[in-house]
């Protein structure tokens, strides 16, 4: 990490199968969040997003997808996490700019 770069936490993300259902599991240390990939449940996704915003106020983090495979859900998860990570970084920057971070980590 170079001078001026901010520390970024890396949390685990993985695809899990529960019967016919596939979930993207996001482990943000204090709790584990789940997004269903087989069913469209926007309110549940929003609930997860709300928790991600709250967490972003405390720290900058991204997800690393575990055991990547070539099946459909692995492809989806890879794409989803890739986009989500970019967006998490952008939002953390926005929170910092708006001075909405809680105990922000100072650069340098």
């Amino acid at each position, binding site marked *: 990490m170079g001078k001026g770069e901010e520390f970024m936490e890396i949390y685990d993300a993985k695809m899990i199968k529960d019967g016919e259902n596939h979930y993207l599991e996001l482990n943000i240390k204090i709790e584990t969040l789940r997004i269903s990939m087989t069913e469209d449940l926007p309110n549940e996704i929003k609930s997860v997003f709300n928790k991600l*915003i709250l967490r972003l106020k405390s720290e900058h983090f991204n997800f690393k997808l575990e055991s990547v495979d070539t099946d459909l859900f692995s492809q989806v998860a890879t794409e989803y996490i890739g986009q989500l990570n970019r967006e998490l970084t952008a939002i953390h920057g926005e929170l910092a700019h708006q001075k909405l971070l809680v105990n922000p980590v100072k650069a340098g």
Partner: protein
Amino acid sequence: MREENDSNMKIDVHAHTKKTKQGEAEARDIEPKQFIEIIAGTDVRIVAITNHNVFDYTQYAAIKKEAGQDIQVWPGVELDVLEDDRRAHLLVIISPQKAQSLSEIMTKITSGKIPDTFSISIKGVIDNFDHLNPIYIAHYHQKKPDLLDESIEKLVSATKFPSRVIKEVTNSISAGIYISHGHRSIFGSDIQDWEKYGEIARDLPDLRLPVESYEHFCLLLEKDANAINTILDKKKSDLISLRPFEDDTELNLKVYNDINVLFGSKGTGKTMILNAIAKYYRDKGISADVFETGAEKLGANYDLKGKMFSIDLKTHGVDYCTNEIDSVKTATEKDVTNPSNYIQYFSTEIKNKNAKKIIIQNFVTGNLKQFERNFASIKSTQEKITEFLSFIRSDQTLRDNINTKKIGALETSLQEVISELDGIRGNKYVELKINQLFNSLIATVKREISRKTGTPERPVTTGFQDYALNRIGIEVSARKIKSNLKKVINIPNEYVGNLGRKGDLYCKTDVVFQDGHVSDGSLSPKSMVTKHPQKYFSRKMEEIIDSLCDTNLFEKIEELNSIENSELIKSLYELLLFKRYFVVDNKSYLPSNGEISMLLLHKELSEDKDVYILDEPEKSLSNDYINDTIVPLIKEKAKVCKKIFISTHDANIAVRTLPYNSIYREHKSDGYDTYVGNPFSNNLTNIRDRTDTLDWKEISMKTLEGGKEAFGERGRIYGDI
């Protein structure tokens, strides 16, 4: 013309410059230069030197030389008069032109005698001094050693100038009492210690009319009509023509840039005359209103209901938050991308070879926020500097005070900075547009591939970014609203007046925002939005802040919008509450009717106007307040040549202000009559019939409330000349 200064003139008819008798204090001795320095430090402009049984011409001449034109120094002597084996003191004051003669007479009659033992009879006084046309001032009653009434009568009978025999009493109160009983009286300093003169001089008699010389003073003593009219004519006056009554009768009055008092019984049309006077001046473009007192007027004057009260929040460092309130009220939820979009895309293989070759379809859209901010920041900086340059170019003060070369150099530097910023601004704009176009390109290409190949569009975002940005935007607005609602607004107290021992009365304005927790029922809303909606709105805003990362955030926003009159709350101004009230020592205070009258009148007289018109200002006021505060204030206005019209039933005002002009209204069986006059001539003349005259003092004592007391308590003889 010395009109203004003359109005402050005081007279001291009894000053000593040397100790001449054994029992006298050394502190009476004073050198001519020091004497004039001390007198000049007071308002005394006429002083008579009256040493015991001695007139020192050399010293007098030296003092007169030091005095110059500003101070009149009259020669005199304080004689020991022996009548019926009783010793008393009599001041003999003469014209400065006859000082040499006084010296010669004193040398002759005191030859071979010492001041301690010298005495002279009344007859001796007349024989030796009466031809000098003197003023005689006899110690009287409590002023010891005093001349008995019989001795004074003897002096009055023997002198050629009986109107110039005056009684010297101990102070102004005594003088007033004797004046009320028809005695001419006065008092002087009879100074014992010159170090105390400044303090003593403050209570010496005022000269309401300017006195130019000893001879002039004698004419006033004799109530010489010409002398009085000459003085009055020097005062600026207007001849005003009024039609105050319903029958259109014309009333022509000469009014002075001084005190003009209207008095007479109730129902004689005084208020109508005042209204006509006000109209007369208003028609000439001079601001004039009739002042009336009344308990409800104080609240109206100080706008306790706040009808006229307005406030600019910006001047108190508060943002109106208009955009923020609108932004919260109109916020809507952002949708997220459903996982099925991803599943659909990855489940369908693009068969089209050409489509596969378009690499751009694999690109993702970038975040534009930073580019937008960079551009906005440069733009704002450049605009501020451009504005500053424009100020420098237009400010005349700068051009008048700063070297042109320096201004030129500053302009050049700023122009260079602006040009450089212009370049950077252009680059930031290009950066922003490139990214906007690139995002647009990616979206368009993906959409077109999807359309042409019949395959699902590749999702470009999880929706988290827009979802989060939307909530962050709401949070920023709501927090800004909350922090501004917490700001304290301080409005300076307005001084209302003094309530004597109670202290100063102020009008205080409390202004607070309804932040959801204010429950003071005495506060009123500043806008059309009533108190309950204000409170619910602010409380709901707090709930919104607490729900920013909750799923029910938009339910709260919906509830905010459904509050009654919520649509009227467009800025923080609509959440203002205020209260205006009176305070003493910062504690709420409700003035009594008397205090209200007092304060209103004081306020009226504190305002700088050319014309003051007061209708019965004494209403609800105590005599002490009228005497000690209002009469001096009215006199002050007269001194600076303001026109003051007062209709009154109160002798404290009608007599003690010693008006240049007294207008008396009388009801007779055949109608009303108007008399004009003044206290100096002691006459009131019917304006319709010059032969019909009244005695000013008698009418004043008879007509005015407290008339006798007014003459008795604090009259001052030279006002009563």
